[in-house]
């Protein structure tokens, strides 16, 4: 019971927090009556968030439009009754059975243009191929049914590639300050280098494995082809290992083939011999060849080692040679100076003086030059500083411009999107407007409005009629009362005058007074009855409303609840006592 009471209190509190103006408390929920709950519910419903109103203002997206179209289609198809296959007209075949179906199977198409190479740079053979031999796109797939799939796939892939490039260019390319071509080529070379590194790492030769030779040479060729494609293929010349192995395989292959040819030729005449001999011979041959191969491989290893050895020694030798040449020239220089000194020795004094003069002149010249240099240096330094500043300024400017460009890009995209959205909204509204029924004209509405207005007018007239009637009645009553009063006064006077003279008249006067009194009483009573009747009616109405409030049952309920609470209290008290 107490839990119910608390719940009712909290509910009432919540409603009041929402801003409910009316009277509310726990009794509203526990002992409810119709009008109160009704008003409360109306208030709460009004408070509900209105989603539909908000969404109707928003421009409907593509998906909403599509859903609407789908809904229309489904509605149209649901309206068509099902027919057995034999009774179908061709037009109904469309909706009730779809005819033969095929999987979405696309094939790569070769196209008469290249996305990477501009048209005027294509080689002559390629253009010739495009012109004379390339079949049209719809004739390329092996089955005609995969033509649409292939075309759609081609288009989608081109579109997505363009989009990806666009987004990459906007996010990274613009910041790198390169032209698109430079950016592309740089990216390509970066990728190539990474692939090369990976392949190199994977192609570390394993001397024990026989297949290693072959695979490394394959990889070497691959790398070579990369080098041929890229402009900076000189990296590969450093990879001596690969070039060596490649050389071996290339030089050995002709030899091998010659040997094989010879072996085959020698085996030809013996074909007439018996099978047994042939097999034995073949096996021998195979063994011999394998041995030979093995020998050759060993030889090759040796030779390779020798060559490596020799190359290193050649390198060493050339280094030594260079060093020797250097020391040689140094020695020659030394010898020349010494020779000059020896030449100058005989006339020592003179020559010393000359030399002194020479040295002094040189010093002076050096000073002179230094001064000149200083003179030149200052403006040059100034110039350098200025240029540096200019450069940094330009850098700042260009970053600013880049930011602006980016902003503009964003703005352009936003505006385009907005325009698209607006257009879609316009279209949608247009279709909705067209869909709206046109036959509901204004006249019908105006007619109805006019009717309602007429009704109201009639009612008003009636009300005024009744009011005037009441007024007239009131007036009549008033005039009658006045008349009565006046006549009574006159009669009273007359009778009073006569009553002094005559005894019987006096009696009649008394009667008259009594009559008057009684009549007034009567009127009073009638009026009282009217008011009482009115009161009764009011009270009846009140009783009705009270009845509708289910007061009795509510009271009963309250009584029961009261009892329950008392019982609870009693049990609680008992528990306390027990404890």
């Amino acid at each position, binding site marked *: 019971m107490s839990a119910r009471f608390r719940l009712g209190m909290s509910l009432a509190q919540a409603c009041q927090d929402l801003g409910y103006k009316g009277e509310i408390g726990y009794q509203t929920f526990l002992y409810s009556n119709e009008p109160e709950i009704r008003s409360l519910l109306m208030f709460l419903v009004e408070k509900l968030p209105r989603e539909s109103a908000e969404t109707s203002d928003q421009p409907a997206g593509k998906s909403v439009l599509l859903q609407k179209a789908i809904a229309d289609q489904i509605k149209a198809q649901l309206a068509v009754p099902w027919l057995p296959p034999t009774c179908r007209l061709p037009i109904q075949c469309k909706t009730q059975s779809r005819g033969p179906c095929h999987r979405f199977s696309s094939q790569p198409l070769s196209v008469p243009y290249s996305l990477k190479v501009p048209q005027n740079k294509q080689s002559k053979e390629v253009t010739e191929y495009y012109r004379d031999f390339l*079949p049209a796109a719809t004739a390329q797939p092996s089955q*005609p049914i995969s033509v649409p799939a292939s075309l759609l796939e081609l288009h989608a892939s*081109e*579109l997505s590639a363009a989009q990806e490039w666009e987004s990459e260019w906007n996010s990274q390319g613009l910041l790198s300050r390169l032209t698109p071509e430079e950016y592309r080529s740089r990216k390509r070379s970066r990728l190539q280098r990474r692939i090369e590194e990976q392949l190199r790492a994977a192609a570390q030769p394993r001397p024990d494995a026989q297949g290693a030779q072959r695979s490394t040479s394959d990889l070497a060729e691959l790398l070579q082809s990369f080098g041929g494609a890229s402009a900076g293929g000189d990296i590969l010349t450093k990879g001596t290992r690969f070039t060596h192995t490649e050389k071996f395989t290339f030089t050995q292959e002709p030899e091998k083939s010659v040997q094989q040819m010879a072996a085959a030729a020698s085996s030809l005449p013996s074909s007439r011999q018996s099978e047994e001999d042939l097999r034995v011979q073949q096996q021998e041959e195979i063994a011999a060849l394998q041995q030979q191969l093995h020998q050759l491989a060993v030889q090759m290893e040796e030779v390779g080692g020798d060559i490596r050895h020799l190359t290193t020694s050649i390198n060493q030798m050339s280094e030594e040679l260079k060093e020797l040449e250097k020391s040689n020239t140094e020695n020659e220089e030394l010898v020349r100076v010494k020779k000059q000194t020896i030449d100058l020795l005989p006339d020592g004094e003179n020559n010393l003086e000359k030399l002194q003069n020479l040295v002094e002149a040189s010093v002076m010249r050096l000073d002179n030059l230094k001064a000149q240099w200083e003179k030149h240096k200052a403006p040059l330094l100034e110039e350098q500083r200025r240029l540096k500043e200019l450069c940094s300024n330009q850098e700042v400017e260009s970053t600013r411009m880049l930011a602006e460009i980016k902003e503009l890009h964003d703005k352009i995209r936003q505006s385009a999107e907005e325009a698209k959205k607006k257009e879609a909204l316009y279209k949608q509204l247009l279709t909705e407007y067209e869909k709206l029924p046109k036959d509901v004209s204004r006249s019908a509405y105006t007619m109805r409005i006019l009717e309602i207005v007429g009704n109201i007018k009639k009612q008003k007239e009636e009300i005024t009629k009744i009011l005037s009637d009441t007024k007239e009645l009131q007036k009549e009553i008033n005039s009658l009362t006045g008349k009565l009063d006046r006549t009574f006064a006159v009669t009273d006077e007359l009778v009073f005058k006569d009553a002094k003279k005559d005894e019987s008249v006096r009696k009649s006067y008394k009667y008259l007074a009594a009559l008057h009194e009684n009549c007034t009483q009567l009127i009073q009573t009638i009026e009282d009855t009217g008011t009482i009747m009115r009161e009764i009616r009011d009270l009846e109405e009140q009783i009705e409303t009270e009845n509708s409030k289910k007061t009795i049952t509510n009271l009963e309920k309250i009584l029961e609840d009261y009892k329950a609470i008392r019982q609870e209290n009693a049990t609680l008290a008992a528990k306390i006592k027990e404890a």
Partner: protein
Amino acid sequence: MELSESVQKGLQYLADPVHFDLKTFTAFTEVAFQSLISSRSECGLDDPQLKDIDQTILKHCHIATTTFILESVKQNADKSAISSCLEDSFDTDRIDVFYSSYQHHKRTLENLLESIGRSPPHITDVLWRLDYCIKNSHVHKVNQPSYLISLHVENDDSGGPPKEVNFNCTMEQLQDLVGKMKDAAKSLEKATQS
């Protein structure tokens, strides 16, 4: 409708009066539509009216036009959408020529595109039988109903005679099936009202 760069380039060639005058343009559009529709694997680019045009450009235009047609049909493009795509390079005469053949072939092309994909078979009829199992060799008392359902389906893929799908189920499974079907029907109804 978004078009890739190469398609736009091809359409520009097509719009250029140096390569195509109005007559060859009309012939070429017809050839492009026919090459999509016809089941034979010839393309019709050897049409005598198209002899004088550079074959490379012709092939490029052919790919661009067929792609454009397929995209328009895929998007269910109306006249305004098509002309907004083409009006940058095409003049109104050519747009009209293109649009009239587009309308003429649209239904067929839609069928062509619809035929890509798979659809589950249609159920056209159902037969059922109620069995009541009293006992079996393992259990003495079973007392359970079981239903044998046979659905007649119309299979569109093969176009062959109607087939049957047979299965056996308990009462709960059947109730589940019926409930799911009712759900499906209801959600279809709901989809029409949105």
